[in-house]
């Protein structure tokens, strides 16, 4: 009896698998197509200059060909990608921390404090979420110029923090307000003030959303081109990788051994973060589905 059931289900499974063949083919084909561009970049970045210039990267597997780290060595040193990597870190890390901190305080006030007109102000913040930063470039640039801040890290830290705030406040406020009300009230009753409740109750309970926000914001800044381009003015000693790469494209548009390795260097950290912390990253995306 039991055997029969198994046999039947086996046949069924086979039938099912066959009838679902097109489904698998479609998914796998699309996935492969999606991987081709990055794979090409990755493989090429290890190929010698002449090989890249004359043959397709897919031939590297079929013919006996050599791979090299020379491209990386060259972009890191001669083209300053090592310096740019550091600059990207110096820009993104403090700005992200600042954004999360400033936003957390504001979000807490919006969620749990008696803020007259808070609802309306929060709606304005939601509106600011999609304001293109293009609308701010000229006045801010003029401000920075008169304050002598153009081309400095503090300028981009401040600008990035301000630009990141609407999203960060939005995300955290929505998370904070979903915390059980009883929990905070219980702490107030026990004698805690807002500061204590914020640091001892709300922060520890919000680690996942803070992490999601941190990762999301960090990658956003790491990948930013426009803000760095405008406020840092393309000075090589402060340029992050995105700016350096775009300079490489305009000066060495067909030196693919440089471009591929430089681009891959800039992708390494996001890829590691993505694979290690995918859950948080996706959570940030979902929560911020409205961010532009």
């Amino acid at each position, binding site marked *: 009896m039991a055997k029969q059931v198994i046999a039947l289900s086996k046949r069924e499974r086979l039938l099912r698998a066959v009838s679902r063949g097109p489904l698998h083919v479609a998914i796998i084909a699309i996935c492969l197509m999606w991987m081709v561009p990055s794979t090409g970049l990755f493989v090429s970045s290890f190929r010698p200059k002449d090989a890249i210039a004359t043959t397709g990267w897919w031939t590297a597997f079929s013919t006996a060909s050599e791979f090299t780290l020379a491209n990386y060595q060259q972009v890191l040193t001669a083209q300053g990608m090592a310096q740019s990597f550091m600059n990207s870190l110096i820009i993104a890390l403090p700005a992200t921390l600042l954004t999360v901190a400033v936003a957390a305080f504001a979000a807490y006030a919006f969620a749990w404090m008696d803020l007259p007109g808070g609802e309306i102000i929060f709606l304005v913040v939601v509106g600011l979420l999609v304001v293109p930063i293009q609308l701010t470039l000229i006045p801010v640039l003029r401000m920075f110029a008169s304050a002598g801040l153009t081309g400095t890290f503090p300028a981009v830290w401040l600008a990035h923090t301000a630009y990141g705030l609407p999203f960060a406040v939005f995300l955290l406020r929505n998370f904070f307000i979903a915390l059980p009300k*009883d929990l905070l*009230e219980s*702490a107030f009753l*026990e004698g805690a003030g807002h500061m204590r409740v914020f640091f001892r109750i709300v922060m520890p309970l919000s680690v996942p959303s803070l992490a999601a926000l941190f990762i999301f914001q960090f990658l956003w800044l790491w990948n930013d081109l426009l803000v760095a381009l405008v406020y840092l003015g393309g000075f090589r000693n402060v340029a992050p990788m995105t700016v350096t790469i775009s300079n490489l494209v305009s000066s060495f548009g067909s030196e693919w051994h440089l471009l591929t390795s430089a681009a891959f260097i800039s992708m390494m950290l996001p890829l590691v973060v993505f694979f290690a912390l995918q859950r948080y990253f996706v959570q940030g995306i979902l929560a911020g589905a409205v961010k532009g």
Partner: protein
Amino acid sequence: MARVLFDHVTKRFGEFTALRDFNLEIADKEFLVLVGPSGCGKSTALRMLAGLEDITEGSIFIEERRVNGVPAKDRDIAMVFQSYALYPHMTVYDNIAFGLRLRRMPKDEMDPKVKEAASILGVDTLLDRKPGQLSGGQRQRVAVARAIVREPKVFLLDEPLSNLDAKLRVHTRAEISKLHQRLGTTFVYVTHDQVEAMTMADRIAVMNEGIIQQVGSPQKLYDEPVNVFVAGFIGSPSMNFFEAEVVENGEGVRLEGEGFVVDVPDDRADDVRGFLGRRMVFGVRPENIHDKDYVPAGITAAPTAVKVDVTEPMGNEVFLHLMAGDTKLLARVDPRTAMRAGDRVEVVIDMERMHIFDPETKESALS
């Protein structure tokens, strides 16, 4: 040590009035229960006392101090929430110690207090666990331990038993009563369950739609409800109500209801003579309607003919759903009764214990 006074307190949420002219004095060391149907404003009253809601009008005093506008943390009260509100990221020990730590109590003073509170509630073996690893009953105990450890002036409980299963609820009821005796603190306890109110309270305040209906001891509310709402709310199963006209003939005073007639015993006749010829609302509790064959000694009223709709045997008693003419009555009778659904039988309605209400105002018509 702590007397509580609500003095003409009103609470509005926008247009909606959640509490209207609420007046209540709670004596020191008293166990007061606020009871009423869900949504009647019990929690709102409690939360205003705790300092979690603003007071729209009126004043609240704790001892002699007016506490309007005093933040929750400065009122020296503790509260057990229906959800327990345990901090999920802290151990049981840290949950209990949280309030003491905020007061910067030295560790060697705090530690024995935390352990004592934990042992009073029987959670001293769980101190290292997080709330997520506790059962519902254990969580409830931790919430109570957290509240008592600070030795507050007033102790507030908002439906603390409603997340427990029935058996545990009965047990915990008694535990909380014991705790009250042991601590000798003022307790204000909110529940929608009149059984909890009756079994635990020194005094009960019955609320409906934001208004206090009656305040008094459980027995007083049971025996002398001031209106139809309290009469129906207190006691389980609920009191029977029927409209009847008061009539007097040569033999005495009778009530003529919808399709049935019942005599008023001579010693209560004076209570109803004032309403001769009027229709009034009468209330009889289910335990005052008896199977004709098992009438307790001393009750002499004439039987009334009824039809049995449904019987509900409970073991120690039987509930009979009866139709007296067009009037539905519920009787709680001796388990030996032979009455079965569909039978036309006779029961004795003991009007000795009747309640009389004005049909317009629904207020008690007994002076």
